[in-house]
């Protein structure tokens, strides 16, 4: 079973190359952007010679740490947005494409159950894509720290102090990993819904995935003049239990007034225990299990080949 899962997940990565091409493309774009900023900043003002993260004209230690933390969080956010799109498109395509090109007949000629197949796609969407995204975030951070360090050192700055000493790398990386994995689990009911639509829709799975919730929300508003359904679905997007509804503004405000000049910690703003003990987490997993079972059932029983 586990051996099969490795082979099945590998198969997903062969088929959906965007899973690793997208993070790689973002990493390249961010790095080129940082390089461009470094060059541009140096060109504009001599005072910005040590530009961006290592800039000596940024008022003080805390500010530099904040800018670096801002870069780390900002890059991670770009990856998270890409992760969201990747997951939606991957999940909607994963069980639809095989029916469209009829390759489902080949896959089903192998000794693999429908449950194993659907679960491999769920694992890919909820865990593998987030994990690859985390690696993308780490590598982007690392490469850009190295690039900036070389730049700062070239300008005579102390990269060890100005760059590497101003950011808690492990704290940030662990936080990034927790956020992406937690988002996969937190969003798992949506992923399972997309998988279900992917195996059920005869055409245009993207429309089939988004129309029913919108129609349901509209009906609720028309009949009851309430918006509970869409609000519940929408609010799940901000992963409240992990961040206590924290806003980015409040995050920097809080950091501003912290005692001392320690590096900014993202982990301190997370509540992992609160997250895994939240009823919303477990009810989400339950909905995910139900919809995954439905997807397995449909793949097993539908016969439109």
């Amino acid at each position: 079973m586990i051996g099969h899962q490795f082979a099945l997940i590998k198969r997903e990565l062969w088929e959906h190359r965007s899973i690793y091409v997208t993070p790689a493309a973002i990493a390249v774009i961010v790095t080129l952007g940082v390089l461009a900023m470094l060059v541009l900043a140096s060109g504009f003002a001599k005072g910005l010679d040590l530009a961006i993260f290592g800039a000596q004209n940024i008022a003080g230690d805390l500010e530099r740490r904040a800018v670096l933390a801002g870069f780390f969080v900002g890059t991670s956010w770009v990856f998270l947005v890409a992760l969201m799109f990747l997951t939606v498109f991957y999940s909607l395509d994963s069980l639809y494409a095989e029916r469209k090109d009829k390759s489902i007949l080949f896959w089903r000629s192998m000794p693999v159950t429908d449950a194993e197949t659907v679960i491999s796609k769920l694992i890919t969407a909820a865990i593998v894509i987030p994990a690859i995204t985390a690696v993308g975030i780490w590598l982007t951070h690392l490469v850009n720290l190295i690039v900036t360090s070389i730049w700062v050192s070239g300008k005579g700055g102390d990269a060890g102090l100005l760059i590497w000493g101003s950011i808690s790398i492990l704290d940030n990386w662990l936080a990034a990993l927790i956020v992406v994995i937690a988002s996969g689990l937190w969003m798992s009911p949506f992923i399972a819904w997309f998988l279900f639509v992917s195996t059920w829709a005869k055409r245009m799975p993207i429309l089939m995935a988004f129309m029913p919730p919108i129609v349901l929300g509209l009906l609720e508003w028309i009949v009851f003049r309430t918006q509970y359904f869409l609000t519940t679905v929408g609010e799940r997007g901000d992963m409240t239990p992990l961040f206590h509804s924290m806003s980015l503004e409040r995050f920097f405000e809080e950091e501003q007034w912290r005692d001392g000049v320690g590096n900014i910690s993202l982990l301190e703003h997370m509540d992992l225990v609160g997250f895994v003990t939240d009823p919303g987490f477990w009810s989400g997993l339950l909905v995910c299990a139900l919809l995954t079972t439905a997807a397995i059932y449909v793949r097993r029983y539908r016969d439109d080949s």
Partner: protein
Amino acid sequence: MTSLVSARGVSKRFGAVRAVDNVSFDIEKGKILGLIGPNGAGKTTLLKAVLGLTDCEGDLSVLGFNPFRQRKQLMQNICFIADVAVLPRWIKVSQLLDYVEAIHPNFSRKRAEELLRQTKIMSTSRVKELSKGMVTQLHLSIIMAIDAKLLVLDEPTLGLDILFRKEFYSNLLNDYFDEERTILITTHQVEEIENLLTDIMFINDGKILLDSSMDSLSDTYVELMTSGDAAKKAHGLRPIAEHEMFGKSVMLFEGVSRDHLEGLGELRIPSVADLFVAKIKEARK
């Protein structure tokens, strides 16, 4: 003889339509069975039931398994080619071999690579870069490298040119088939496979019209080419089909002894195609 497939009262309904209607048959080890029927006769539905791809009513046992409930175990000992175009187009040949090697306990990668070396297929090619004939060669190489007890082929050479079709069946017979293996095949190009079949089954409107070994077929069915008074006399023996050819009557008899027909004209063993047409017409009367 050991029954690999045993069907008793198997039916499959789609709404009011009975695609397979209460059929019973056995397939024994070491046979090559041709399942022949017109479009919409229920061939593919029956094959899907045998492969566990669709549920059905009645008792169906394949290699001792309930195909629908125990599909995973079944697929370790069954291979099938459903159509020539079902290999995923995005996959590379090497990836396909990696996948089957990881998934299938009875797959020999060495054997598959040996077979592929006899073709022009490169391991770095993607399926979408291969011609239709090459895709079939690739699929067949994989199937032939799997040590399976039953091979099911559903229109495996559809859309291929005559060279690939001949090569396909030649490879199948020479490099794959032995007395431990059984092949179940459906095709429209019945003339091309009738010489390699050991058994034959005709199906129409979900019902089996004929289930016979090829050997006993020649004992049961006789074709007579005759004319004049002899033709009138032959009519009395109630042929199941008759048509004109070169001004002569060609009659097909079922269960009539050759002794009775001797002297009435030229006797031949009917082709499967002629027999098929006669049985279908008879069923539609």
